[in-house]
């Protein structure tokens, strides 16, 4: 009996050795550098936004890999000029929308569709005047922290990131979780014509290909419009405002089903 136990133990140990979990340590991908600068972006007008093909054509669709310098932030930057009014800045990283069956808080029993837990990345959105951005576009990722020196020579560190999102308890400065779209309104009325930098900070890459694909855009807002108005005008969910941000096989089909509200029906067992 003890020999049998020993043999079982040895087999188990060898099987365990077969799993090294190195896939959870993202590696740089040559085609998708971890730090990129996308240059100048022209904000979409409301008419552009409402037209599905123009919305996609004029928005940014790209991908980000892991920063090749270990321990340093990765991310993408682009700039736009202050319009003199308010704009909505939005980023939608892949892909998150079919995790219902593994949602720890409210899992859907009997979910039939295969759930890919390794294809979600995350990008955090920061926006501010380019003059306050302390990173080097295309070389290293920074932030919007700056130092103000008052007339008596005292220095105060201040945060110039204007993209402040509220968390579940209303606290400012929150970010949406894994692969969830982030958006915020930026008031450029005091700085028309000045450059604003949008930073898409790379929070995590999917474990399947180490590249987070995303869509991002900037849209001019009307006087009384909000980002929520903008997304709800074209989609039932912010996730669906900029579709096809992922490139995986079948991504478009699943997202289309999700955005049409048909995914749950399709994937849930009829009792």
């Amino acid at each position, binding site marked *: 009996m003890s020999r049998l136990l020993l043999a079982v133990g040895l087999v188990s140990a060898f099987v365990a050795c077969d799993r090294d979990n190195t896939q959870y340590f993202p590696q740089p991908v040559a085609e998708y550098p971890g730090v990129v600068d996308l240059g100048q972006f022209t904000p979409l007008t409301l008419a552009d936004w409402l037209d599905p093909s123009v919305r996609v054509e004029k928005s940014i669709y790209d991908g980000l890999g892991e920063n090749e310098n270990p321990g340093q932030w990765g991310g993408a930057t682009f700039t736009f000029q202050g319009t003199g009014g308010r704009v909505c800045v939005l980023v939608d990283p892949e892909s998150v929308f079919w995790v219902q069956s593994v949602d720890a808080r409210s899992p859907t029993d009997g979910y039939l569709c295969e759930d890919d837990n390794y294809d979600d990345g995350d990008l955090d959105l920061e926006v*501010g005047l380019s003059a*306050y951005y302390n990173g080097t576009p295309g070389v290293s990722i920074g932030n919007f922290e*700056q130092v*103000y020196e*008052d*007339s*008596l020579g*005292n220095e*105060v560190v*201040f*945060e*110039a990131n*204007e993209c*402040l999102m509220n968390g579940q308890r209303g606290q400012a400065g929150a970010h949406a979780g894994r692969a969830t779209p982030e958006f915020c309104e*930026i*008031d450029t*009325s*005091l700085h028309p014509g000045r450059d604003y930098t949008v930073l898409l900070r790379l929070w995590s890459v999917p474990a399947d290909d180490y590249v987070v694909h995303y869509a991002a855009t900037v849209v001019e807002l009307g006087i009384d419009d909000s980002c929520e108005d903008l997304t709800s005008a074209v989609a039932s969910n912010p996730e669906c405002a900029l579709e096809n941000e992922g490139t995986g096989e079948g991504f478009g089909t699943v997202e289309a089903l999700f955005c049409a509200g048909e995914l749950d029906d399709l994937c849930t067992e009829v009792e």
Partner: protein
Amino acid sequence: MSPRGVLPDMTSATRAALLLAVVAQACTYDEHLPQVDVKGTVIVPRAAATRMILDERTGVEAEVVDARFIGPVYLGAYSDIRYDIEAYPHPATGPIIGGELGNTYPYGGGTVGVFDFACYTSTLCKVVTGRYADYSSLLSFFSDTLGQPIVDEQGAEVQSPDYFRTSCYDLFEYTEDNELLFLAGEDGLDFKENADGDFEAEFTMWRVNYHAGMKVWGWMDAPDSEFDFTTCDPTNGQQFNQYSASFTTGSSHIDLLNFPSNYIDLGDFVVSEPFELTYEDADAFRDAAPTFTLVYDFQVGVEEEEE
């Protein structure tokens, strides 16, 4: 000397004396803290305590001068005060972020009078400490002078000081009047009329970060015609949830000194001549122990009209 050292050879009296000397020496230790307490006197003009009140019985408006009209008086220490930012003297500001006027980054501040909850929601954001001697003073001011009687949670007018006291003790689970900050007692009232007919009070700005050249400035929040104050946030303060009652007690906004222009409005009284602290450092300031007088002489919106 004993093999165990010096102390065992001493008498207990000597040891006690030595211990006292060591303890006393500790009391002389100067930490050279960079923070100082700034003290002095604020003067608000008679106009800040004056209102035209309509007597509904006679239909005649009469001028009433009463220190209970004086709102909370704010003081802040800043790097500079400028005259080109707003239509009134205003602290220098940092960068403009997101369309909002820049932060003033104050070094410290203080008030003469703060908002306090006087036990009924009808008093929310209307009662300032240091203005009312007792329950009767508060009841008569709101009822007779303002024409806004205080009502209890059932909507009935509160007329009896004893009922007022009972409500307060019941709500806060207090047992003495001196636990209620809004009751100052005759000796605790902040403002006294001076020889010029203006009103003055002593102030202390605790623990201000001292910087040579900093300027102390402030403003008084004058109540509007409904006796409401722009510097009070009714959603701030202590939260009460008792049976069917659910309310907050109100408190001042948290960024008054950082963004004063968000709260200063027509009728408020602003300091036009800040005082400058020129002592070399905090130690020099402490050695001199100066006191200052700050005059709230600029009424917002009135100066321009007169010009």
